[in-house]
C-alpha cells in the first residue's frame, strides 16, 4: 500500500503544478464567477438557468481536466524515463498504475472542490442564497460529477496503457460524449418493439458496454424539483457503486495490458 500512496501523492504534486491544467481550471473558475453577469432572464428563470450554467461549467471543466490529466500520465512517465527508476524498485506494475490513477482522482478532487467552493461563494455572495438546505443540495451536483470524472479518468488511464496521447484524447473524449449523450438513445432503441431483434440486441450491447455518464448528471433534479427521485440517497449510492464497479473493471483491464507492455 505504501508504494501506491507514495506514487499517488507524487502524481497529485505534479498535476497541481501542470500549467495547462491550471489554465483550464482558471478558465472554469472565471466562468463560475462570471455566470451571474451572463444571465438576462427573470428572477425565477435566472436562478434556474444560473444553476444549470454553473454546474455545466464545472462539469465541462472537470471533464477536460480529467482527460488532459490522464491521457499523458503513462506516456510522460515512459518518455521522461521516470518509470524506469520506479519499476526498478520493489514496485509492481499494478501498484504503479493504481497509484497513478488514485493520484489523478485526488488531483481532480482538489480542483473540483475548489470550483465547488467558488460556486457556493458565488451563490451566497452574489445571488444571496443563504438557505443551508438549498446550498447542500447544490453540492450534490459536483459530488456526482466527481464520481463521473473518476470514471472518466479510469477510461483515460485504461487507454493510456496502449494508445498514444493524441488517440487517447479523442477516444476518451468520444466515449465521454457518447456515454453522456447517446446512452439514453441506445436504451430507448433496446426497448423499442418496432426495432428488429438484431438492432435491439446491438443497442443493448452498446448501452451495456458504454459507461453511462448521463446518469451522473443530476442537475435536472436540482433545477427541476418537480422531477423528484424517490430516495435520493439510495439513488446516489447506486450510482456510486455502478461507478466504482466500472472503474475497477477498467483498472483491471488496464493492469492486464500494462503488465505485458514493453516500456
Amino acid at each position, binding site marked *: 500500500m505504501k508504494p501506491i500512496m507514495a506514487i499517488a501523492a507524487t502524481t497529485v504534486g505534479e498535476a497541481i503544478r501542470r500549467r495547462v491544467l491550471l489554465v483550464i481550471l482558471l478558465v472554469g473558475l472565471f466562468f463560475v464567477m462570471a455566470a451571474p453577469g451572463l444571465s438576462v432572464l427573470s428572477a425565477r428563470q435566472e436562478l434556474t438557468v444560473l444553476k444549470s450554467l454553473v454546474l455545466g461549467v464545472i462539469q465541462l471543466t472537470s471533464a477536460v481536466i480529467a482527460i488532459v490529466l490522464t491521457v499523458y500520465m503513462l506516456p510522460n512517465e515512459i518518455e521522461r524515463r521516470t518509470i524506469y527508476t520506479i519499476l526498478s*524498485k520493489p514496485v509492481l506494475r499494478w501498484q504503479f498504475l493504481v497509484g497513478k490513477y488514485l493520484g489523478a482522482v485526488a488531483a481532480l478532487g482538489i480542483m473540483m472542490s475548489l470550483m465547488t467552493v467558488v460556486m457556493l461563494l458565488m451563490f451566497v455572495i452574489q445571488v444571496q442564497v443563504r438557505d443551508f438546505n438549498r446550498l447542500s443540495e447544490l453540492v450534490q451536483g459536483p459530488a456526482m460529477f466527481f464520481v463521473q470524472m473518476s470514471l472518466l479518468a479510469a477510461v483515460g488511464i485504461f487507454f493510456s496503457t496502449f494508445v498514444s496521447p493524441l488517440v487517447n484524447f479523442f477516444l476518451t473524449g468520444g466515449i465521454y460524449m457518447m456515454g453522456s449523450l447517446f446512452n439514453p438513445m441506445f436504451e430507448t432503441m433496446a426497448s423499442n418493439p418496432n426495432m428488429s431483434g438484431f438492432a435491439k440486441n446491438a443497442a443493448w450491447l452498446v448501452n451495456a458496454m458504454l459507461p453511462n455518464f448521463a446518469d451522473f448528471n443530476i442537475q435536472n433534479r436540482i433545477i427541476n424539483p418537480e422531477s423528484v427521485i424517490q430516495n435520493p440517497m439510495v439513488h446516489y449510492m447506486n450510482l456510486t457503486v455502478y461507478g466504482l464497479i466500472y472503474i475497477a473493471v477498467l483498472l483491471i483491464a488496464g493492469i492486464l495490458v500494462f503488465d505485458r507492455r514493453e516500456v
Partner: protein
Amino acid sequence: MGSAIVTNSLTKSYRTRAGQVNVVDALSLEVEEGEIFGFLGPNGAGKTTTIKMLLGIIYPTSGEGYVLGKEIGDIEVHKVISYLPERPYYYEHMTGLELLKFYASLFGIKDEAKCRDLLEKVNLHNDMTKAISQYSKGMQQRVGLAQSLLNDPKLLFLDEPTAGLDPIAHTEIRNLILSFRDEGRTVFISSHELSEVERICDRVAIINHGIIVAQGRLDDLLRGGRIEIIADEVSAALADDLRGKLKDATVSHHEGRLIVDMAEDSDQNAIFDAIRTAKGKVVSIIPRRKRLEDIFVESVKAKKGEKPGGAA
C-alpha cells in the same frame, strides 16, 4: 565469490517491417559479486535493452537470466538492487530531499536522516532543499546515485553514469563508483566512455549489434601492447641488421637516430645489447600499452556487417 548476474542465451527480438530483428542476440555473460563490470558498446548496440531485461522492465524473447541468484523479474531482487538510468529525469517540482524521501517510501523506508546522509555523501548537503529543476546535470546525476543507494544495494546498474558531465563531475562520479566497490557492492556499468571504464572496471564485455564480441578481465584484454625504443649515434648498418632480424617490428633510421617499434613481449634485451655493442646510446623506452579503445574498435570492426539491426 558467487555470481551477481548470469545470463544464458538471453535474446530480445522485435518485429519490424524488414522482419525480425534481434536487438540482443543469445547474450551469455557472468558478472561476479564485488566487481565493477563494464558493459561496452556503440550507440544502439543493445546495452540499455540488456539492462532493462535484467531489471525485468522488458521481457526477453528467449533465454534465461539470473540476478543475485533469482530469475530476472523477481520483485524480491528489486529490494537489493538499484538502477540509475541514462540521462535520468526526476520530478522537478521536488527538492533533492523530497525526491529521496519519495524513493525511500517505495522501499517502505521512513528514515529521513538516511536520505540526508546520502545527499551528504554525494556532496548535495547544501542543495538538498533546492528544487530539482535548479540542479545542474552533474547534481542530477549525483542525486540519482544517492537514490540508488537508498536500499543499501548489493548490485547497482549504472547506465552511462558520466554521459554529458564536465571533468570535475566525471571525477566525482568515478570516485563514488570506486567507493561502491570498496563497500563490497557489485557495479554493472553500461558505457561507451572507454577511458572512464578502463580506469575503474575489473572486467568488461563489448557488445555490438546485440552480440558479445569480446569479454574478459581488463588486464587480459589489454595485454599485448607495444614498446618503442629510441637510440642515438646508431649506424645505418645496425638498423638494416635489426630490420632483418625483427619480423614483427618497425625499424626506422634517420641521421643516426634509431627508432624501433616492437611487440611488448619481444626480446628487448637483444636490441639493447646490439645498440650497446655498436656504441649507440639508448635515449628512451616508451611502453605503449594496448588501450581499451583499440580493443573496442578492433572488436566492433571485426564484426561489422555480420549482423544487421540495432537497439536503444
